[in-house]
């Protein structure tokens, strides 16, 4: 039913990209800033024209069916500032008036749990409340397809979790979502499938579990060991059974591990043999962040 595909060349915004979002799924576009996520989602939203390529949304086409499409999409843009002088209710009434059908204004406000703030000015809302209002503006038309561009960027952890719960509720109604994010935990929690983007290209595509399984072992181990004069010989560590992809990183060592209960004792034994003191040891289950680091050698956020 939906099937979107585009080739688009700007500086290096989006480069020969093929993607399909399936009906009823929540699809995540993941990547660092400047990876081309926003350009991609704005092409799908019909806000930015592609230089070449095709986009099909809900079986419709932006050049022919723009009017009908607009009625069926819910869109949240990055960094929109809604008018600060209007109240929450007035803002929702304004957006509601553009759609032929959809819930009552107060219903939408209840959906995003802003009932108490209905008559408050937008300028007096907190960051999380503003973001929920922006989500409400995307929900007023009872959309079949919801686009969310970095819905939780800049929010504190509690506000993020609250927003995730709202998005999960919307997912339960069986409608389709395309969201962009640079938070790995957000994608892992909300998305059935994710595409990891870098430099305008998709570098990995699949369910979060598949992606983790395809590139990494189950666990990640990081440790710091050794002093200035006394450096650890990594070749011996790499040779341990169940340890792969050993990398030095800012003085610490990072590796993938399949069986934690066998690999860690073996690692400690090896350190003991080389008489290198261990200063720090951390393990965690592999995440999408690790997938990204493994694929690109860079961290998602930062540099």
């Amino acid at each position, binding site marked *: 039913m939906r099937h979107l595909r585009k080739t688009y060349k700007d500086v290096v915004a989006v480069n020969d990209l093929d993607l399909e979002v399936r009906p009823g799924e929540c699809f995540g576009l993941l990547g660092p800033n400047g990876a081309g996520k926003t350009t991609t989602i704005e092409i799908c939203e019909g*806000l930015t024209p592609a230089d070449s390529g095709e986009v099909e949304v809900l079986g419709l086409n932006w050049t022919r069916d723009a009017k009908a499409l*607009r009625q069926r999409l819910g869109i949240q843009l990055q960094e929109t500032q809604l008018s600060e002088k209007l109240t929450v209710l*007035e803002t929702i009434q304004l957006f509601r008036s553009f759609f032929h059908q959809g819930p009552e204004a107060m219903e939408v406000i209840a959906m995003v749990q802003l009932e108490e703030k209905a008559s408050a000015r937008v300028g007096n809302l907190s960051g999380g409340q503003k973001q929920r209002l922006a989500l409400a503006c995307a929900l007023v038309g009872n959309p079949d397809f919801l686009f969310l561009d970095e819905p939780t960027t800049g929010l504190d952890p509690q506000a993020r979790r609250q927003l995730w719960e709202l998005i999960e509720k919307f997912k339960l109604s069986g409608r389709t979502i395309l969201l962009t994010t640079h938070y790995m935990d957000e994608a892992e929690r909300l998305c059935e499938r994710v595409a990891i983007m870098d430099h305008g290209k998709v570098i990995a595509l699949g369910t979060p579990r598949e992606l983790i399984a395809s590139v990494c072992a189950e666990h990640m181990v990081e440790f710091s060991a050794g002093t200035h004069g006394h450096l650890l010989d990594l070749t011996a560590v790499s040779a341990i059974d169940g340890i792969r992809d050993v990398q030095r990183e800012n003085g610490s060592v990072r590796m993938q591990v399949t069986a934690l209960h066998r690999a860690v004792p073996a690692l400690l034994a090896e350190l003991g043999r080389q008489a290198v003191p261990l200063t720090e040891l951390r393990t965690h289950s592999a995440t999408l962040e690790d997938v990204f680091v493994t694929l690109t050698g860079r961290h998602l956020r930062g540099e």
Partner: protein
Amino acid sequence: MNSSHPLMQLTLVRFREFVREPEALFWVFGFPIILAAGLGIAFRNRPAEVLPVAAVTPQLSASMRTEKLLDVRQLPPGEAERELRNGKVVLVAEPGANGAVVYRYDDTNPDGRSARMLADRAIERAAGRQDPVASKDTLMREPGSRYIDFLVPGLLGMNLMGSAVWGMAFGIVDARRKKLIKRLMATPMPREYYLLSFVLSRLVLLVVEVGAVLGFAVLVFQVPVYGSLVALAFFCVLSSMSFCALGLLIASRVQTIEAASGMTNAVMMPMWICSGVFFSAQRFPNIMQPLIKALPLTAVIDALRSNMLQGASFAQLAPEAGVLSAWLVVCFFVALKLFRWR
């Protein structure tokens, strides 16, 4: 119109944003009234001034006192001289040789020259002069010919321009800067409604705005409106639309408030100066007149003045209506061509 109609909602938003901005309210309603009141007081018609003069003999002094417009003091010669030099009196009359009279005054000072004529007439008449031609004065003090009458149509025109150009340019550029236009473009909102909402809210505010300024001028200063009110309303609406189009043109591509405010001032400043708000545009050299006549603000002010002060008919104001319509059409279409919807 249903209150959930998008055009209604957009227009309501414009009103809400306007009335919740106290500064905007002041500039649109308070400022022109305060300006009119201030200038009205400064340029109010005072009774003709009495000129202070001095005479050095009782006889001259008595003769000059028959003239009501002179305030005559009799002083010894030295002191009279000193008072003249200090500007306390504008003229000193002293006896000359053979019964003549000598006037001392500064002929570059208009008051001195007036005093000279008044004093001379009083002294000659007291000495028995008969004027061969009888004369009678008709004083120009009725409403319609005072400075305040000239000023109010000018302020009204200036206000029509300012609120329309500012309202349009600021509203649109602010929405663009906040990515609000882009957000609205992501909804099924019809684009023309967005622009139309600015025009509609302007028209409604226009009634209040013109009403406030004109009402104040008529009630407080008895400024007359001799022409038809329909023609007056027509010119207010037409000019407001032209200035909206001008504002739209300014806002069509600009991304920041700073750029918009610079452009707005650059467009309006020449008109404030040249279009005859505070003084007649006729004072500029002839070579500039065709250019000045083509400015929209000149056209509005000329039309309003002719309507209010001379009761000019619609037909007489056709050229001004033509100028305004031309600005409206040209600005509007160029603006639509250039407009950046994001």
